[in-house]
C-alpha cells in the first residue's frame, strides 16, 4: 500500500519508465527476417557474407541468432524465428512432422572429423568407419570430450555412439557443455579424442595440436537444411521475408559465394552446396 503510494509520488520513476518504454524507433517488423541458425554457420564467417548480400537491396534486415541447433529448433517451436538453418536431420524431420515448419530443404553439407592426440593411444588412425573409431576409443578407455549441449554436433556424436553400440558416460567421457571452440580447447588440454566439424577444426588447427584420426565416413556427413517456420501455426511469423531469404540462399549467386568461401582463408572449400538451383 505504502509502496504503491510512493510509486505514484515518484516523478523520476515515472520518467524512467517513460524513457525506457518510449525510446527507440523500432524497425517495422515486416522488414525484419529472423533466422535461427547454428554457431558453426556463424563462427566460420559464412553467415556474415550471406547476410550482407541478402540485405544489399535494402528490402529486408536479417536478424541472425546463432545458437546451438537445439535452441534454434526451440526458437522455431515457439514461433520466435521466421526461418531455421540447422543441421540435426532427425529433429528436423520431427519438427516438420509436428507441423512447426514447412519446406524443409537440405541444401548444404560439410563433414565432421574425429580428432585425437598425435600419439593416438587408442590406435584409431586409419579406421574408416566412425562407429569403429568410437568403439576403439571406448575399448582403450581413452578420454573423449563431448559438446553435450544438444547441438547438431552433439546429436551427431550420440548417433555414432549408438551405431557403435556403446553407452558413453563413464569417467573417460567428458561432457563440456560448451561450443565447438571451447570443447576443442578442453580436448587439447586433456589430450582427448573429439568429434568436430571440419570448418571449426580448420580455423583452430594451428592452436590445438590435435590431428584427424578418422574422416570420410558417410556417417560423418553434416547436412544443413532450411526450414520455413509455419505461418499457419504462428501468425506473427514474417512468411514473406522468410521466403525471400529461403529463395536467396537457394539461388545461384549464393551458391557461388558458398562454394568459394574458405578457399582463400583455409586453403580449401568448407561447405558443399548440393541443391539443384534453377
Amino acid at each position, binding site marked *: 500500500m505504502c509502496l504503491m503510494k510512493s510509486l505514484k509520488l515518484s516523478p523520476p520513476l515515472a520518467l524512467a*519508465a517513460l*524513457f525506457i518504454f518510449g*525510446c527507440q524507433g523500432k*524497425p517495422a517488423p515486416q522488414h525484419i527476417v529472423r533466422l535461427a541458425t547454428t554457431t558453426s554457420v556463424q563462427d*566460420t564467417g559464412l553467415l556474415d557474407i550471406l547476410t550482407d548480400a541478402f540485405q544489399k537491396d535494402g528490402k529486408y534486415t536479417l536478424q541472425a541468432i546463432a545458437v546451438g541447433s537445439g535452441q534454434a529448433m526451440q526458437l522455431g517451436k515457439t514461433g520466435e524465428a521466421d526461418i531455421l538453418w540447422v543441421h540435426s536431420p532427425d529433429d528436423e524431420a520431427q519438427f516438420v512432422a509436428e507441423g512447426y515448419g514447412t519446406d524443409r530443404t537440405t541444401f548444404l553439407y560439410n563433414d565432421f572429423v574425429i580428432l585425437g592426440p598425435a600419439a593416438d593411444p587408442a590406435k584409431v588412425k586409419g579406421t574408416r568407419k566412425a562407429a569403429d573409431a568410437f568403439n576403439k576409443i571406448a575399448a582403450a578407455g581413452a578420454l573423449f570430450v563431448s559438446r553435450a549441449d544438444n547441438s547438431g554436433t552433439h546429436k551427431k556424436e550420440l548417433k555414432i555412439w549408438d551405431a557403435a553400440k556403446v553407452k558413453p558416460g563413464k569417467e573417460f567421457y567428458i561432457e563440456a557443455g560448451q561450443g565447438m571452440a571451447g570443447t576443442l580447447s578442453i580436448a587439447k588440454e586433456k589430450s582427448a579424442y573429439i568429434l568436430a566439424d571440419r570448418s571449426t577444426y580448420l580455423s583452430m588447427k594451428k592452436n590445438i595440436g590435435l590431428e584427424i584420426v578418422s574422416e570420410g565416413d558417410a556417417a560423418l556427413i553434416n547436412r544443413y537444411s532450411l526450414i520455413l517456420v509455419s505461418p499457419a501455426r*504462428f501468425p506473427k511469423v514474417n512468411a514473406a521475408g522468410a521466403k525471400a531469404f529461403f529463395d536467396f540462399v537457394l539461388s545461384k549467386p549464393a551458391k557461388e559465394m558458398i562454394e568459394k568461401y574458405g578457399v582463400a582463408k583455409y586453403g580449401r572449400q568448407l561447405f558443399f552446396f548440393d541443391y539443384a538451383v534453377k
Partner: protein
Amino acid sequence: MSFIIQGFQKALHLIFSGNAEIFGIARLSLTVSLLATAAAVLAGVPLGSWIAVKRFPLKKLLIALVNTGMGLPPVVAGLVVMLFLARSGPLGFLNWLYTPTGMIIAQFIIAMPIITALSISAMQGVDPRFYQQVLTLGASDWQAIKVCLKEIRLTVLAAVIAGFGRLVAEVGAVMIVGGNIRHQTRMLTTATVMETNMGNFDMAIALGLILLTLSFAVNLALTLIQQKKVLPR
C-alpha cells in the same frame, strides 16, 4: 602469452585503423549500458531513498529482497526478459526481442537492485534528524530526499559507477536478449564471447582491451566529477 601480445597489437590496430564495425560495436555497448545505468539511477535512487527514509511494514523484508536482487545472475534476468519480449510472450507485440531496447531493459533490471540497494544504505547513513530538519524547513518528502541526496552525492556517484561497471562488463543477459546480431545487437562483450568460441583469441583479447579502455574512460570521467565535489578539508 603470444595471444596477449597479438591481442594488444590487434587492439591498437583496430582502434587506430578506424574499423567501422568495431566502432559501431563499441558505440552500441556504451549506449546500451549508459542508458540502462541512467534509467536505473532515475528509478533506483529515488526508490532507494524513499525506502530508507520512510517507515512502513515489512521494510526490512523489502530491503533484504533488494539486497538479494544485487546478486541476480544476469542470465536469469536475460532469460526472464526474453520470455516476456518473445513473440509468444506477454510483451511480444512490442517487437523488442533482439533489439537494443530489449538489452537496455534487461540491463536496467540488473542495475536497478544494485543502485537501489546502494542508495538505501547511502541514505540510511544520513542522520534521521537531518532529514526531519529539512522537512521542517518546508520541504515535501521528495524535496527533502533531494536535499539529502545532495549531501551524499559522492556516495550516490559511487553507486552509479558500480552499476555502470557491472553493466558494461555484462554478457549473459545481452547475449540472450540481444542475440549478438551483427550490426544490430552485437556488443563488445558478446563479440568477445563469439570470437573466443571461434578460436580467434587475439581478436577476443583486442575486444576485451577496447572494452576495458572505454570502461576506464567512463569511470575516469565519473570519478573526476565525483572528486571535484569533494570539499577541501
